[in-house]
């Protein structure tokens, strides 16, 4: 566990593709239970940052500590372990396995993590309002329902941090509101959330907004400071 209260800590995190720096010198501390949003225009480095924070890609330079684990120098296999142990991922495209039911999609995350408890998975789906859709395939669910399955899957292993990439990007307004309420609920339960979004309504719901431009932090806006 971390010693300074930050679940997520980066120092000069940089990712280059050849000569081009997609993200440069990204430094931030996210205390446990905080909800921050990463905002910025297309090409500002949001997705690159999310892939680094999700341990899907290694940084070119810099430090990244997640829940006390220095992730910058770990092997590919260790990154897999960090992903399954400490991170809950929510995607814009939902990314559910099409031939597994809603319940099985949630169980899949447990399967790669540790033991499977079907009741836990059912409860997770009930918490996101899908108790009646357990055995439906993704193709039988609406976009909002698929995103809620994705959220239930992200939560099932009690991760140290939830990383969400444009979670409302493919949803209509009604489902957007449902997802926003879910994030507020998760935050109120003390979850640490890093959310990448274009959506101002969702972004401004966070405690802090990190604004990216050309791969660098342009501004950090704290809701408390604004208030």
């Amino acid at each position: 566990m971390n010693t300074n209260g930050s679940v997520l800590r980066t120092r000069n995190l940089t990712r280059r593709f050849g000569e081009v720096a997609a993200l440069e010198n990204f430094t931030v501390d996210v205390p446990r239970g905080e909800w921050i949003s990463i905002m910025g225009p297309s090409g500002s480095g949001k997705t690159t940052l999310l892939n680094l924070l999700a341990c899907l890609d290694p940084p070119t330079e810099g430090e990244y500590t997640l829940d006390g684990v220095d992730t910058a120098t770990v092997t590919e296999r260790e990154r897999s372990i960090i992903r399954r142990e400490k991170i809950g991922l929510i995607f814009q495209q939902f990314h559910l396995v099409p031939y597994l039911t809603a319940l099985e999609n949630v169980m899949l995350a447990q399967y790669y993590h540790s033991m499977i408890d079907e009741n836990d998975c059912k409860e997770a789906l009930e918490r996101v309002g899908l108790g009646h859709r357990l055995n439906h395939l993704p193709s039988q669910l609406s976009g909002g329902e698929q995103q809620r399955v994705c959220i239930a899957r992200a939560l099932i292993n009690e991760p140290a941090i939830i990383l969400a990439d444009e979670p409302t990007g493919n949803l209509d307004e009604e489902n957007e509101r449902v997802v926003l309420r879910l994030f507020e609920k998760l935050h109120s339960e003390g979850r640490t959330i890093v959310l990448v979004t274009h959506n101002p309504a969702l972004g401004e719901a966070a405690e802090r907004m990190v604004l990216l431009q050309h791969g660098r932090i342009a501004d950090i806006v704290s809701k408390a400071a604004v208030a």
Partner: protein
Amino acid sequence: MAAARVTRARMFLRLITKALTVRKSRVAIALFSIMIGAAIISALLCVYFDISIKMSRELRTYGANFFVGPSADSEERTIDFSAFEAAVKTVPPEALIGASPYLYGIVRLDLGNAVMAGVDFSGIRRLSPYWQVDGRWIVADFDDRNCMLGKSLAKNMELKVGDKINLVNRDRNFETKLTVKGIIETGQAEDQQILVNRALAQQILGQDGKINHAMMSILTEGLDIDALASSIERRLPFIDAKPIRKVSHSEGKILGKITGLMALVAIVILSLTTLCVMTTLMAMIVERTPEIGLVKALGADNGNVVLQFLSEIGVITVSGVVLGIVVGYGLAQVLGQAVFSSSISFRLIVVPMTLAISLAAALVAGAIPVRMAVKINPSSVLRGEE
């Protein structure tokens, strides 16, 4: 913990089952390919294990392959008939196809002299089943009223089946009248000879209890023919026993060539099967790239991915092999009837051998697709770049 492990195992099985059943057409193609490969392999293995015996029996219909006669350093040109009997007893009964003694002499027929061979007709019929007979074989070894004539001799003497001939020995102290029961066409020296029963020949030639040599037809499969010859010579020191090299060698060469041909067919079929399975699996991996990227993002490591795909390949292979062995056994029967006019026996060893060969082929076929799966980068997939 035990219950949790069971659940994990059940989840694993569920993942395998669903992954396979959702892609029925691709799985069916891979399954069918493996089934065809396994069928050919198991059929050829069944035939291979039977072929040596069946071919050996088949080849044994083309004449004798073992000679017993007086030893080279002996001045005698004959051996005792009892020595022939002792030599025959040395051969394992199940390996002995046929045996006949030969006693030769010159006799006078109505129109001139001829070579007479005294043989055991029951033995010589098994030694040379390919002889063409006009009329009938002499069936009783004690038949001293009938004879068989070589085709050329019959033509020269203007004799036909049913004719009666007078036979006189060279010393003119023995005369008998014989009926031509059959005229044989052998393509060999026998075409010029008159064949009578050995006992009668001994009587005519005054060589009681003697023969010149004997020929045997012995199944060489699983038998050390040289050791057999040595064994006979040890027991009967005045006897020369030896395999007829030309025949034995030819048998070996034919068997070797057939086995080689079968191996070549198996390799070609196996290669085609492997290529077909490989392309099908590669198509499956491409189709499942988003799924693989997702499970990697969820924390699956390369070991999990490899285990998943190898298990799927294993299920397809084992199912294909089970079907293939059934089909292969039927195919072996068709081959057996077509080539040997007999059924091919099923041997249990064919099952593990077919399974091992098919699994090895499937592993080779799966190597590149599984490598493709391992190399999938989850961040690229989730961005929609792969």
